[in-house]
């Protein structure tokens, strides 16, 4: 049940449903989409970004919140740590315990490497766990890797690294087969055919899913396998800095026990950075769907080690974050809700955008609509939003569909007294994904830092300026496995004596630039004492 402010407008949505069932909103023409993005997407606003003044990307524009961290001094007291006697040693050190890190660990160990996985929170605490929608792979007879390739490039504005996209779409079927082998419970037809639906920007139905817990199902399966294979895992132990030898080759990291504060040195032949993205930086003040640990730590460490970043001026806002109730503000309403038929509707009960445009376009359309008099809807706390007509799913597919197909979503709203199968839900864009990241090649190798590999959301270039739904769960596994394989097989000579010289150099550079008032990596966001709307 909605408060009075919202009820009237929700009733208008219900009243127009019958008419809208027969109505198909036209897709945006390419030039309309362009104008929409330029006019309303936060990436194009002047006040949200600035050029970074230190390091390899000096002069490149990125969100203020990220630049603040790249221009920060090291959190590590460089004189307090002795690098001579490493506490931990391995062939492959994996930093990060989400889907990419777990996939890398399993793959590297299967190649015969001694693996060590360290992670800031728990194994499995990652955005992977929260991905509800699905995972893309071109496996139907009417689909092909090349068709998938075209969708990815078009979604990314033709800026993506073609070699990375080719790797992504070519490995996709094998990744799904690997998960099937591991016992992942994909939703299937009785004959074993994987169920498939459209996602925003797909030209074929290639979104595969495990009910609406796709990411959780993948993550809990990989986590279980990591434990079964007895991969050594150290939890609550974030990395503070990478370690390089005199030739700039990566050979370990300085870690910190989160509970005791003690520092640990880990030495390895190769290092895989799978630390995730930057959602918890709350870029431009947006709420976020992201996990508590998504604070860009890997970007900060790799940047100091000399890695190049790319596409970090392109932030993905998921068009459908929760706008009401307040307790769920910013949390994800999966794209699958639109995939199975719900329309986006303004306060007057009218459609204003085709529901399955790419995420950047739908977000911009929602922001535009909320700025038009009478079209947006305001909650009692002043948060703006528009309606996602979830009861429409039941009109199309029959009663009980919402509860059956979207149990996670249904449960979340039910906890706060909203029956989304009978009442529409109020949404507004939320910070969802870091489109860019650390530049790498198709083996996951960071070209400027030998011995360092990247996987998962920390990587950049795969999605260009905009990722499509269902390609993130895919990329973490494709590049997690690639990084694991290549890091295990690296032919580089063993690293020499490890140093933190690059961090000293960075500290001097930020000081010279008159920066460095902050410390980074951030490790965790600070919500102490904040008002409810802050997170």
């Amino acid at each position, binding site marked *: 049940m909605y408060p009075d402010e919202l009820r009237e407008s929700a009733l208008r949505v219900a009243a127009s449903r019958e008419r809208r069932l027969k109505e198909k909103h036209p897709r945006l023409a390419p030039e309309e989409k362009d104008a929409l993005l330029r006019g309303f997407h936060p990436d194009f606003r002047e006040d949200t970004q600035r050029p970074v003044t230190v390091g390899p990307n000096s002069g490149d524009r990125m969100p203020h919140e990220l630049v603040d961290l790249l221009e920060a001094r090291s959190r590590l007291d460089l004189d307090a740590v002795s690098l001579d006697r490493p506490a931990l040693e391995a062939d492959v050190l994996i930093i990060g315990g989400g889907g990419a890190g777990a996939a890398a660990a399993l793959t590297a160990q299967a190649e015969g490497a001694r693996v060590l996985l360290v992670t800031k*929170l*728990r194994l499995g*605490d990652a955005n992977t*766990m*929260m991905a509800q929608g699905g995972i893309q792979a071109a*496996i*139907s*007879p*009417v689909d*092909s890797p*090349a068709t998938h390739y*075209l*969708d990815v*490039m*078009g979604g990314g504005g*033709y800026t993506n690294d*073609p070699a990375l*996209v080719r790797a992504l779409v*070519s490995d996709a079927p*094998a990744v*799904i*087969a690997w998960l*099937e082998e*591991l*016992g992942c419970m*994909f939703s*299937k037809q*009785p004959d*074993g055919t*994987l169920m498939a639906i*459209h996602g925003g920007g797909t*030209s*074929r139905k290639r979104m595969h899913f495990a*009910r609406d*817990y796709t990411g*959780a*199902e993948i993550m*809990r399966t990989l986590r279980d*396998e990591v*434990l*079964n294979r007895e991969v050594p895992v150290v939890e609550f132990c974030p990395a503070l800095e990478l370690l390089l030898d005199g030739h700039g080759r990566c050979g370990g990291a300085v870690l910190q026990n*989160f*509970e005791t504060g003690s520092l640990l040195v880990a030495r390895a032949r190769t290092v895989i950075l799978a630390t995730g993205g930057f959602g918890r930086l709350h870029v431009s003040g947006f709420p976020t*769907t992201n*996990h*508590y640990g998504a604070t860009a730590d890997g970007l900060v460490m790799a940047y100091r080690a000399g890695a190049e970043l790319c596409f970090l001026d392109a932030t993905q806002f998921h068009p459908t974050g929760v706008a009401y109730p*307040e*307790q*769920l503000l910013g*949390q994800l309403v999966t794209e699958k809700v639109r995939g199975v038929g719900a329309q986006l509707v303004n306060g007057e009960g009218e459609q204003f955008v085709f529901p399955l445009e790419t995420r950047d376009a739908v977000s911009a359309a929602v922001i535009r609509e909320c700025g038009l008099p009478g079209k947006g809807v305001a909650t009692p706390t002043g948060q703006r939003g528009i309606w996602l007509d979830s009861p429409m799913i039941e009109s199309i597919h029959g009663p009980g569909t919402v509860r059956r197909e979207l149990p*996670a979503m249904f*449960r*979340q709203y039910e906890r706060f007294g909203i029956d989304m199968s009978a009442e529409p839900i109020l949404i507004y864009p939320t910070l969802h994904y870091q489109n860019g990241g650390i530049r790498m090649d198709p083996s996951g190798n960071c070209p400027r830092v030998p011995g360092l590999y990247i996987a998962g959301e920390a990587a950049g270039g795969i999605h260009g300026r905009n990722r499509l739904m269902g390609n993130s769960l895919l990329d973490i596994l494709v590049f997690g496995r690639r990084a694991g394989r290549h890091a295990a097989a690296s032919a580089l000579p063993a690293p020499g004596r490890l140093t933190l010289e690059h961090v000293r150099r960075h500290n001097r550079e930020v000081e010279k630039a008159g920066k460095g008032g902050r410390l980074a990596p951030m490790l*965790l966001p*600070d*919500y*102490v004492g904040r*008002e*409810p709307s802050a*997170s």
Partner: protein
Amino acid sequence: MTQPGPEFIVVHILGKAYRVPAGLTILRAMEHAGYRLVRGVGCRGGFCGACGTLYRTRNDYRIKVGLACQTVAEHDMYLTQLPFYPASKARYDLDGLAPSLATLVRLHPELPRCLGCNTCTRSCPQGLDVMDYMARAMRGDIAGAADLSFDCIMCGLCASRCPAEQTQYNVALLARRLYGRHLAPKADHLARRVGEVAAGQFDAELDRMTGLDAKALKGLYDARDIEA
């Protein structure tokens, strides 16, 4: 007329009282009170099971449970988090396992000791019928246990309250993996496509595609046919 100020409630975190605005989740109430959490917080969206919490309200002897990120704090709530639970986890090689009752009991010898008290079901923040899926596991109905437990987030609250020392969430995970690996119908079209990719069947098309510039790609993209 002046706007009414926020209403406040008192919550007792680890026995200490804090005044916080009404309407916050337990997680936000703790942060409002000054806790900067490292444990007992995760996805903040009800998916990861990091923030299992035990609580009691005044004048009620019963201990209740919930996820801190999904449960609204109430006045006079006495709470503690359970961010880690030292439950056992069987190690196994999935490929070599038979999807049978014998496998479940060998890896979880405590399974037949379930008392049928239903405390697990009452403790599940996901509203799952935990006792029912455990009953199916005890009958060797792997598919049923997998199906009914599918929405489990492995927070461990069921195990923490179980008088028979069951680890329901690990039994459920084993059942799901056994089902997915050995009982679910295999995706033949997937295996075929993996073979086609390995045989290089799509290489020529991808070679051509990766060679196109943005303008040529855009031409193809704008003219795509979309599967109905």
